[in-house]
């Protein structure tokens, strides 16, 4: 199956930066109501400006390979980067996932995220791939970062 790229399976089996760690500025708990998948996610930032660094993303993810792997990629790609860069990565990831196959993803922006290009063909799985990312932007807001609902991935 196209969907299950080696990279996805690797990330789901060995989720990067998994576990809940201290210190953290905000913790959120997100659930996918259709399947019951859950993620608890913490962020630790150097400040609340766009230029602040994402010092840590720690999480406990319970879910399908797509949701766990996507959360792992999130941690891998955003940890150590600025808040602004992380939001760009999220935007690019989301654009690809909701493109119905039109956008194959830019590896220089989303790194291992390109492995998820196939998910955009399966609308029911897009939610899985976004679970961790939406938890992340929610956590940023709760940590005091000033982002618009659209940037945070709110549906219209």
């Amino acid at each position, binding site marked *: 199956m196209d969907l299950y790229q080696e990279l996805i399976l690797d990330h789901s089996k060995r989720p990067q930066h998994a576990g809940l760690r201290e210190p953290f500025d905000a913790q959120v708990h997100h*659930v996918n*109501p259709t399947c019951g998948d859950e993620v608890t996610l913490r962020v630790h930032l150097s400040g609340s400006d766009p230029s602040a660094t994402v010092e840590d993303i720690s999480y406990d993810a319970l879910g399908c390979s797509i949701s766990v792997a996507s959360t792992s990629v999130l941690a891998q790609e955003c940890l150590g980067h600025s808040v602004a860069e992380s939001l760009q990565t999220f935007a690019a990831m989301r654009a690809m996932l909701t493109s119905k196959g039109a956008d194959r993803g830019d590896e220089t922006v989303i790194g291992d995220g390109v492995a998820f290009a196939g998910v955009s063909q*399966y609308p*029911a799985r897009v939610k899985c791939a976004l679970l961790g990312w939406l938890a992340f932007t929610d956590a940023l807001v709760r940590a005091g970062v000033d982002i618009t609902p659209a940037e945070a991935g709110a549906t*219209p």
Partner: protein
Amino acid sequence: MTTTVTGAAPFTAAESAAIRGDFPILTRTVRGGRPLVYLDSGATSQKPYAVLDAERAYYTTSNAAPHRGAHLLSEEATAAYERARARLGAFVGAPAHEMVFTKNATEALNLVAYAFSNATVGRFTMDRRDEILVTAMEHHANLVPWQELARRTGAKLRWVDLTPGGELDLTALDGLLTERTKVFAFTHVSNVLGTVNPVRELAAAAHAVGALAVLDACQSVPHLPVDLAALGVDFAAFSGHKMLGPMGIGALWGREPLLDEMPPFLTGGSMIELVRMEESTYAPPPQRFEAGVPMAAQAVGLAAACEYLDGLGMERVHAHEQLLVEAALDGLAQRPWVRVLGPVDATRRSGSVAFVVDGVHAHDVGQVLDDAGVALRVGHHCAWPLHRALGVTASTRASFAAYTTLDEIGTFLAALDTVPAIFGTGA
């Protein structure tokens, strides 16, 4: 040639014939082989092939439970259902996420009424200090749910009376809308009088005292171009079956922040966020208000109806129906033994003409017309208090749709002329 405010033209004879060809039922005959003259579209409309085919195509290619699966059919069903929501929203000037599918307009109005008694915090709470305002021209669907809400909460139900000309007595509005008024529910177009109410003005008056404005759009959406958001109301309800769509589907439109604040009404699957035995939390709108497997096939059919109506052009549908209303009003005015209910000026009304025949009960009028193949509605048309206010027990109503023709108005008037002789009431 009659034109509407927008200047759209009624359908030509050729266009009219083509439209009729889209409605299979119109070729059937009734009582002794007479052609069917269907003048009861205000009760429920007939359905074009486009609607029947869309529903069938859904069932034969993509049927599955929407929002309840990840397999291909379920994805297709979900996409079809949500596309239908967006299409319906576009038809009435509303974004998809503000559109809630219900089984009919009645459920939609009950949904809003129950929100007030179910709410425990916020602007939807209601108690004996509050008031609900309706009008004396409401259909039972926009009256009884508010009576029941008043009973459940102890709030007081008040109403706007009618002028002798069959319009709302707006002079009384000031006294009726007070800071106690939590909600003002009124119809866009009366299903008996045909009166088109000044919605913007009524909504503004409601908002001036902090009340919510709930619109019964059942008799406007099928007949006029309607932009709900632009009308200034907060909620609107209408039914699919009256707008060429399938039975078993209706809609509630509500402004996003209000829907957000409303507690659920029907509860169960697909409207939840998290369920534990002890307690549950709920999904955001519109899902919060759509418990259970929804009527996806009917949603697809309703979207096809919107497509069909937009293909005709709602301005032209309206212009066409106004022509029919005028012809009916003119014809009835020439018969002194007939009394028309509601405004005599066609520009103040829409879609239907109700009347009484001197000395002959509506049931008897309807029976004679039915025998001539003319199907129309008799009784109080679910607006009993209105009939009581007008001093009549029952009336006869001819109501129209895009497929109705001027010839049919002629057949109707000719059949009506046989009535006085049959009942010996002269003429």
